[in-house]
């Protein structure tokens, strides 16, 4: 079973933009270890005749026709936005690249 280290939890926290104290990291590292252990039990029933899959259902090709439907109004789209300006979502300064 794959182990998860304290450093990996810190790395994930950074990628997820979640600030964590050293205590929280210690706590979460061991907790995540337990969760992974529980999930890993699935592998115990995985025999050689069961192919690995990412989906529970044996389904493929679920498509929709290329037809448009009405979208939300900007009012509705922005109704949950913490801040807005000129019908756009307003977000704090981004450090990175413009696209």
């Amino acid at each position, binding site marked *: 079973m794959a182990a998860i280290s304290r450093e990996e939890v810190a790395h994930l926290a950074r*990628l*997820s*933009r979640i600030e964590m104290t050293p205590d929280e990291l210690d706590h979460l590292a061991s907790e995540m270890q337990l969760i992974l252990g529980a999930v890993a039990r699935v592998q115990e029933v995985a025999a050689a005749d069961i192919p690995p899959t*990412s*989906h529970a*259902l044996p*389904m*493929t*090709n*679920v*498509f*929709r*026709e*290329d*037809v*448009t*439907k009405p*979208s*939300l*109004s*900007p009012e509705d*789209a*922005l109704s949950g936005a913490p801040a807005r*300006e*000129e*019908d*756009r*979502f*307003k*977000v*704090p*300064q*981004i*450090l*990175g*690249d*413009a*696209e």
Partner: protein
Amino acid sequence: MALNYDQAVSKYEPTLGLEVHVELNTNSKMFCSCSTVFGAEPNTQTCPVCLGMPGALPVVNAKAIESSILIGLALNCSIAPYSRFARKNYFYPDMPKNFQTSQYDEPICVDGYLDVEIETDEGPKTFRVDIERVHMEEDTGKSLHVGGATGRIHGAEYSLLDYNRAGIPLVEIVTRIVPGTGKYAPAVARAYVTELRDILRSLGVSDVKMEQGSLRCDANVSLAPIGSGKLGTRSETKNVNSLRSVERAVAGEIVRQANRLEAGERIVQETRHFLEESGETRPGRSKETAEDYRYFPEPDLVPVAPDAKWIEELRATLPEKPSTRRKRLQEAWGVSDNEMASMVNAELLDTVEATIALGAEPARARGWWLGEISRLANEKEVHPTSLITAEQVAEVIALIANGELTDKLARGVVEGVIAGEGSPREVIDKRGLKVVSDDGALMTAIEAAIAAQPDTAERIRGGNIPAAGALIGAVMKATGGQADAAKVRELLLKHLGQG
């Protein structure tokens, strides 16, 4: 001393890699039914799916799959019998879901190639660009950076997001490294993107407008000392938004990297941005490694498994390859390489072809579109096809061919059509641009000219044919340039016993 381009490529061997993103021209988005129309008011084309609301479920657009398969087939790829979507996780406000739905280890098309021809010192040469993969993903929202001096992200106080573009189907076409181009690397890069754009346009799957961002190119460049057999560290240049910029960006990177290597410095693997004004690149954010995106299979979308029958049906609809078509048209029209290239570069090949299909003689169709109409379009800074249609030009050319218009009058007609005065016929009527072809009217003018210059007429009667020019000129002037000079000459010489 800084190396220039020629010095750089005489010491270092460049290796290219190109990633092209193309926005498909479907009516609706990749995973939801929002419209994809360009230029709509901000946030008028969004829904719970493309805004990443909790619980919203994506459904794949069948047309986008079809377009992706067509692209793969046109690029000689194998179509994967089974491919999956994956989540590419990152925190950045251009994707409100905090992940981009993409494809990772199971793209829809793999292992293709595109042959491109460029002009070398030894004549035309073909380079094969191997395609590693073609995969499907979705476009991101558009950020507007407010505050700071340049509207750029650095120094901005905050950013404003419009998610109309988020979720528009995007196809990424990734080449393998292209070795052995030597000093022609910039030309090969440009030729590849040009040929790819032409193919995508011929397939009808995208608007392929680089200036609107529906076709975007990232150019990877690395250098190694010639003959070393090694591969250098590459940089990835983004923000390359025209064919000319593709060429300039690759050349610029070759010079920059060569000078770093000369100075004993290392090349850093990084993303760089192309600066249109200077042709140089500046560093962008340092690249997150592949693991940092924590790709995993998209649980909300089932795999795509196109059956062989569907693939073969699509293969049967593939249009003629643009390069093959160009060769065919060039032969049919009997035009030189240069003339062909100028039509292609002016993006007038389709239009000239349409004009010829309407009955115009090839030389005349080409001449009008590349000459007068392009000149007027340049003045107005628009594309010639926005001024006048192939039908209208073909009509004008037909009127020249049957003698109803002279070239000079035809220019007036074209001008009138462009000025919005109506169809060629209407302009002719309104401006009174008809050729004076009535023999009686011409004879009156000829007799008047002879009466005014009896000495000249006498010389012509005596066999001095070149002297006729003066009288023809007088007739043309008298008819306001609306006479057919050849016809005037014929009537004049006949009248003076020289016909």
